[in-house]
């Protein structure tokens, strides 16, 4: 039998009583003649704010809110007799479900044998020998998989359109031009499990009748490029790419194309132009790529995460896949949770999981425990902000659109009360303005003008008419822009206006920034009554803007002050006022 091991962690925010309980458990165990029990303090159990938590490893039982007096009972009932104690059991814990990340962190990404031994490439075998392209597409339809790049277009439909189009050559493209600020799910999949994406591409190729594929990876991901290249070489070596795959009649070639680092190249028509060697600018659609894509041949473009799902669907069956998720959004979604959150990292959850579970239970809540979380931003520069009051909304394509945001490719940025929403939306808009290719006027001019208005508001020079202007420009951009970049660029601004209009009004009418992020609205002064004349602010000021002496007291020269907030942070007596 495995040695009994208990993990212990004090998950409360105040104090740490895990050591006492650890000692007590060991003491009781010794009294009862269990000598080989290990009680180990751990750094994280994935449980937060539930008192002292214990995990009995061999039984996979988790207890929460454990008191010192429970030690006796736990050792006797659970360790000796093997029965759980109902009162202490953890309930309703949100769990991650890993489908896309199934192999990440488990296999060696540079070893094809590791991947094959975990049923890798079995789905290629199944499709090539047991299924026709039509039944492959039928199976995809049953699974309900939708594009994970953000828009959520049904994958089977894309494949079916490309299959139906006439062309002597067809292409499969993997879109790995991940550009949203703070999102890195695709990079992790490519670096941790490149073969799953290659397998997905082979199946897609078989389904639409393509014999050539391109992995379009952004050049800023050198490690991902290296690992994918290695994986492609290994697959060729084993006859899993190239001519007559697995001895069947189907052939498929795959090569990497590097992205040039423009955000707009993630848009499918721009991406195609970039592969063709042209300047990466979007084209009006139709014709859609499934009709006339790369070199005017029928082409499908799937996101990395979409492709990583495909092998599992054929391995475990479309019915199984369709049981996960909600009515219209099937399967799981990987989010890169970043920002003011305790555990930043990748989280893969079944669709339909409430946002609250993701940010509070799985990611552990606010980075600074005392702060209040106010919103999360999903979908990057094309998405919107979801306020705290809507955190119980289940995550799915439809629900997030209803809230004025989008699923997006999976960036999730958590914001707390120290963030200014006007400043955040300015940041995202600036990103889109910088990345706009300049081809169409609504995006090029509209974005620039909207940014100018936001600059004005955050500088304290805004008027109420500005909000009307923003709304008008946004409408124009949404209706008239050529591609999704321009159409969705106003989303962060519009969604913050929808939920946090009062913040805009504060900036305009009261000339105040609640979070103190808009530096032009800030003024630091010294409160003489509270000042103990310790000179800490004087020595810390990087621009020597604070002058005076111990007798007369100190003052801040507003001309010199750069509003960095150093004095405010270092003062121990709250003698610096920020207004």
């Amino acid at each position, binding site marked *: 039998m495995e040695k009994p091991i208990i993990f212990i962690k004090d998950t409360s925010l105040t104090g740490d009583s895990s050591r006492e309980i650890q000692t007590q458990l060991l003491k009781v165990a010794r009294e009862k003649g269990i000598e080989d029990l290990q009680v180990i303090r751990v750094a994280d159990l994935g449980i937060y704010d539930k008192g002292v938590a214990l995990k009995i490893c061999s039984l996979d039982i988790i207890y929460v809110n454990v008191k010192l007096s429970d030690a006796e009972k736990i050792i006797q009932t659970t360790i000796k007799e093997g029965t759980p104690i109902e009162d202490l059991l953890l309930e309703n814990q949100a769990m991650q479900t890993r489908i896309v990340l199934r192999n990440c962190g488990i296999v060696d990404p540079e070893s094809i044998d590791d991947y094959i031994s975990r049923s890798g490439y079995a789905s290629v075998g199944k499709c090539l020998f047991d299924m026709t392209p039509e039944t492959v597409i039928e199976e995809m339809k049953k699974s309900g998989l939708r594009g994970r790049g953000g828009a959520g277009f049904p994958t089977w439909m894309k494949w079916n359109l490309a299959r139906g189009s006439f062309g002597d050559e067809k292409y499969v493209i993997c879109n790995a031009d991940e550009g949203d600020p703070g999102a890195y799910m695709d990079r992790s999949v490519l670096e941790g499990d490149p073969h799953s994406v290659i397998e997905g591409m082979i199946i897609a190729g078989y389904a639409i009748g393509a014999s050539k594929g391109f992995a379009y990876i952004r050049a800023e991901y050198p490690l991902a490029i290296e690992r994918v290249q290695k994986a492609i070489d290994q697959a*060729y070596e084993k006859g899993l790419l190239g001519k007559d795959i697995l*001895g069947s009649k189907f052939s498929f070639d795959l090569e990497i194309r590097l992205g040039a680092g423009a955000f707009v190249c993630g848009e499918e028509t721009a991406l195609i132009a970039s592969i063709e060697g042209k300047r990466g600018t979007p084209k009006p659609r139709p014709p859609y790529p499934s009709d006339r894509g790369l070199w005017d041949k029928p082409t499908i473009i799937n996101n990395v995460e979409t492709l990583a799902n495909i092998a599992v669907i054929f391995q475990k069956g479309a019915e199984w896949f369709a049981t996960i998720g909600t009515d219209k959004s099937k399967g799981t979604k990987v989010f890169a949770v970043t920002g003011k959150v305790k555990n930043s990292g990748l989280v893969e959850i079944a669709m339909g999981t409430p946002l609250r579970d993701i940010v509070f239970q799985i990611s552990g809540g606010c980075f600074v425990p005392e702060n209040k979380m106010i919103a999360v931003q999903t979908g990057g520069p094309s998405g919107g902000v979801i306020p705290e009051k809507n955190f119980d909304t289940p995550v799915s394509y439809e629900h997030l659109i209803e809230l004025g945001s989008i699923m997006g490719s999976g960036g999730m940025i958590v914001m707390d009360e120290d963030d200014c929403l006007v400043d955040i939306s300015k940041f995202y808009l600036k990103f889109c303005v910088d990345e706009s290719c300049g081809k169409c006027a609504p995006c090029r001019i509209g974005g620039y003008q909207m940014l100018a208005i936001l600059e004005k508001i955050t500088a304290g020079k805004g008027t109420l008419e500005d909000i009307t202007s923003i709304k008008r420009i946004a409408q124009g951009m949404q209706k008239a822009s050529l591609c999704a970049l321009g159409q969705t660029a106003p989303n962060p601004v519009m969604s913050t206006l929808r939920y946090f209009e009062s913040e805009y009004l504060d900036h305009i009418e009261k000339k105040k920034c609640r979070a103190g992020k808009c530096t032009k609205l800030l003024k630091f002064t010294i409160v003489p009554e509270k000042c103990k004349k310790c000179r800490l602010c004087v020595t810390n000021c990087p621009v020597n803007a604070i002058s005076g002496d111990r007798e007369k007291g100190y003052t801040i020269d507003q001309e010199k002050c750069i509003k960095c907030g150093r004095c405010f942070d270092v003062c121990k007596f709250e003698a610096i006022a920020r207004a």
Partner: protein
Amino acid sequence: MVQLTRDDLKKVQPKIKAGQQYVKVGMSTCGIAAGAQEVFELFTKEIKQHDLNVVVTKTGCLGMCHAEPLVEVSVEGLPSVIYGRVNGEVAHRIIEEHVCGKRLVNDHIFDLPIRR
């Protein structure tokens, strides 16, 4: 080049055979940025020095990017566990206490509730 057939796929053995003791170091960009390369080299060196029957291998990102570098350790008689924020000092302790002494190391384990 070898042309694998469908039946060959089932015969392929993983790098780490069942029952083999191993140390897996998370070596994606996030891990390497946090110092996983050093940790990987240190484990390789130490295990050679102590002449232990343990395979050291690299792997992808486990998702707990806040706790990189992550190291998964599995030795006989103990469940496989994940250590986070591993540096040189922690790596030494893992070798000495966990791999050689068969006692898990306090305060560095990161456990994730995941359904696979």
